[in-house]
């Protein structure tokens, strides 16, 4: 099961390696990891996507909480959340295929951020599933290069009852 964890940390030197070391040292897997400062000085937000059985995820969350520099951990499986990731993908698009690529870009509301004679670079934003879908549709044109962020997530303001 895929889990998105939001981890609020003290922005101290070494904090990233503490978190990364915890995952590698204990054999937990990281699918993606995103770190950036928050509005509060000295505090950063890490968004980690991982997967595993319930007991493993429970250990991951507890182990993260145990790190002295970790302030708060939220598992987004427990709350309703908005999730996004962003990808830039350079696709082969010669004259014959350009229209088709652009049509797909349009359907998924991608932006064209760079063009050349033979390729198009698209920027797409969406949840994990949407990004996967875009990539699989573009594969047949030939993807030359991709750069992809990890997931970021935010709790929705309105939570369903009993959540």
């Amino acid at each position, binding site marked *: 099961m895929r889990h998105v964890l939001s981890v609020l940390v003290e922005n101290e030197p*070494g904090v990233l*390696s503490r978190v990364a070391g915890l995952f590698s*040292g204990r054999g937990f897997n990281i699918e993606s990891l995103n770190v950036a400062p928050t509005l509060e000085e000295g505090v950063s937000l890490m968004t980690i996507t991982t997967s595993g059985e319930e*007991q493993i995820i429970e250990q991951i969350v507890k182990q993260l*909480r145990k790190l002295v520099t970790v302030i708060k951990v939220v598992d987004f499986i427990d709350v309703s959340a908005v999730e996004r990731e962003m990808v830039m993908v350079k696709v082969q698009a010669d004259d014959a295929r350009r229209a088709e690529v652009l049509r797909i870009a349009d359907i998924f509301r991608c932006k064209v951020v760079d063009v050349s004679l033979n390729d198009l670079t698209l920027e797409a934003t969406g949840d994990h599933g949407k990004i996967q879908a875009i990539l699989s549709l573009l594969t047949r044109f030939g993807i030359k290069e991709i750069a992809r962020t990890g997931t970021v997530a935010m709790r929705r303001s309105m939570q369903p009852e009993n959540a």
Partner: protein
Amino acid sequence: MELNGARILLECLKREGVDILFGYPGGAVIDIYDELPRHEVRHILVRHEQAAVHAADGFARASGKVGVCLVTSGPGATNTVTGIATAYADSIPMVVLTGQVPTPLIGNDAFQEVDIVGITRPCTKHNYLVKDVRDLARVLRQAFYLARSGRPGPVLVDLPKDVMQAKTEFVWPEDVKLRSYNPTYRPNLNQLRRAVEALIEAKRPLFFAGGGVVMSDASEELGWLARTLSIPVTSTLMGLGAFPGDDPLWLGMIGMHGTYAGNKAVNNADCIVAVGARFDDRVTGRLSAFASGARIIHIDIDPTSIRKNVQVDIPVVGDCRKALAGIREIATTRLAEKDWATAHEPWLAQVSAWRTEQPLTYVKNGSIKPQQVVETIFSITRGDAIVTTEVGQNQMWTAQFFTFRKPRTLLTSGGLGTMGYGFPAAIGAQFAFPDKLVIDMAGDGSIQMNIQELATAVCNKLPIKIVILNNGYLGMVRQWQELFYQRNYCSTCMEAQPDFVKLAEAYGAEGYRITEAGELESTLRAAFASPHTAVIDVRVEREENVYPMVPAGAALDEMLLV
């Protein structure tokens, strides 16, 4: 007034109540050593940095205080790693101070530079590199607080040379503010009520004590509950001494070399209260068979310990003593709901039948049996000693055949199993209790891993007794080779052993050798009566094995017996 970093460090140590440091100097820490003589704190010069850490660890285990050690950068720092990992595995409160190259040189592969903060990240509770002298007092305050609070552990503080020289106004932070660290001491009342409920329903309950009982000084509460509710008690290696080993309710340690009664009890109990134990694989045997018929109540201050290895029915996060006290309080109001003694009578009869059926035993044959050495030492001392161990058979025989009656009287490397731990730990313990008899139960292999500390012991006139159960083998490994590797004794026979008696004498200690069972008691008595550091080389039966033994991967009640 402005003070330099070295002075601030020593002022902080004083305010933390540190009166002894174990250490070894070097270029990066000369400023600290330069300052040392002007302060009351004692510095004990060891002969290897690993020993400084084990000594601080032994001091901490024996006294319950935070152990402190001080070493230089580079190799001094890397030499501490085994000691730190040992303390981490057993949750020992400790502060390790390492020198570091000056901050402008960090990252340049400077002489004697290592990234010790990086190296020790996975084996410390937390660690710090102090880059600015103005952070020093705060960091040290936090380091001590972290080391001793919650689930204790080693904390390392890396001190660059220029930070020790730089000056600033010294302000002692009165309290520690760490918004990201709030250990749960007070257990959830509801969970405690459920625990009592489970105990009332139980027919075959069992207490299972770990090192957490020792560490949180919960022995009294445990004893009260066991006796009042008529519940037998087992423990891990780390829990030995938490419950008196001569109490009729005591079943012995469980695990790979646990007692028959203890291991049987675990797998036949219907309710187990695990207190401050973390279900190490050496303790549980094959997990799927472990306590399969029992509801498990698990009390631990560290939430990660709970449901890490074993599924738990009633988790209780909190300090062991507070949790047991809470259970006691609730149980007191509900004592009348069950006739505890009568209800548990068949169970107690069963466990004591197991105990008499298969007691811990060994075959006497006229040669010196290692188990007999341990028993003799117990009877000579009447158990009034602090006993440290090395690792291997010597450790297991000590755990089995010495009756530990009080917490903090057995100091042993449980989690990491570090050969070479026992002697330096004994040095630390002797400093904590100068008037107590401190004995290191050693193996001929392990003792050679920190034998150089004889110089430290002699120099400080420590009357430590090192009893070498000398079998001429790396005995525990040889035992595995005998039982599971067709006696292929590859690299376990200790050829070219030193003459331990002469070696002791060369260091200025006393050396004794015992080769006949008849001399055992009289020679041990003589050595124990001596005011000097003494090494007693006891030539024991060479191929004696530790039994019972649960082979790796077997269930706890699938024991090989004597």
